[in-house]
């Protein structure tokens, strides 16, 4: 049992190491964002399209994905007074489109972030709703990573518990963490 738990702890730790680093770095970016330079770079362009392909925002988005190398999830779709607006987003890059019905050109503003902000966008890339395959794979990896985190903690707890000489100081640290964490959670919930 000990060996099995030790191997589980080790394998999970190694398998999700870089994954954990991305989440740790992005958490720091979220907290200290005001101290960091804004890495976003915006570019604008006009793309010629066949107006017949723009029967709806989704049809136009698919045309842009197939023939103009835009990749990502379709988001924030709106259509009003003959103007279609939507975004094609993936972590680190958001393309914002505006198209007037009947026109043969689409206005595109592309926002690109540096690696730190891309990590943040990976951090919040969740859910089973993605049409963009890499985003979907990443979200599923996030689920596995979260389950692994719980197993990692549980196996670590077991490995500590079987070391009798570490039980006293370990118990103190565990209780300190639990009391601090649970008090914060319960206090906040009751507020």
């Amino acid at each position: 049992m000990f060996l099995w738990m030790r191997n589980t702890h080790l394998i999970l730790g190694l398998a999700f190491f870089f994954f954990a680093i991305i989440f740790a770095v992005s958490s720091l970016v979220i907290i200290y964002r005001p101290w960091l330079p804004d890495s976003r770079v915006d570019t604008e362009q006009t793309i010629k399209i066949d107006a017949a392909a723009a029967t709806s925002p989704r049809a136009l988005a698919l045309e842009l994905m197939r023939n103009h190398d835009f990749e990502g999830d379709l988001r924030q779709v709106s259509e009003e007074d003959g103007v279609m607006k939507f975004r094609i987003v993936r972590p680190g890059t958001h393309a914002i489109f505006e198209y007037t019905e009947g026109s043969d050109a689409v206005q595109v503003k592309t926002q690109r972030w540096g690696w730190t902000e891309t990590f943040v966008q990976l951090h919040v890339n969740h859910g089973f709703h993605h049409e963009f395959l890499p985003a979907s794979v990443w979200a599923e990896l996030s689920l596995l990573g979260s389950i692994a985190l719980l197993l990692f903690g549980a196996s670590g707890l077991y490995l500590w518990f079987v070391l009798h000489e570490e039980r006293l100081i370990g118990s103190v640290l565990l209780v300190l963490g639990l009391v601090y964490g649970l008090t914060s959670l319960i206090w906040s919930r009751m507020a």
Partner: protein
Amino acid sequence: MKKLHMWSGLLTFTAFVVWGITGIYAIFLPAPGEWKPPEVSSRREFSFAAPGNLDDKELAKRIFGAAELKMAGGHYNVHRDDDQNLAFNVFTSNGPRNVTYFEDKKRVLVEFRDGGLGGFVSSMHTAHSRRDDARDDHHVAGGEVKRCFYGCAIPI
């Protein structure tokens, strides 16, 4: 090194559990644009006389201060509703609060929308001491606020 590994793991065990639960919870969240806020769980009204010559942003800030909402991570989406009343949303770890100021009656209405336990743990995992700074300086600049699972600290 072995002891440091063990001790730090034990001390942060609760955080690992919270992050693990949050990660599992997050994967089942609805797609952007499909999220619906929790139902109104309670309401509170109080009197508020606004000083003159304030723009909406400043007025919202004063009302937000006067409302003294607990566990509030900041206010956002300041706007005028269909009846031209000043309205804004407040993020708290227990769920969003919708605040409306009825200028003619000099009354503020706060609608509490308490979320479930999963949403609460998810919100708590975003709690950090610089949330207000993060939101004010970068969040609004980084993207439109469509929903606020992450303490309004992240462009979504």
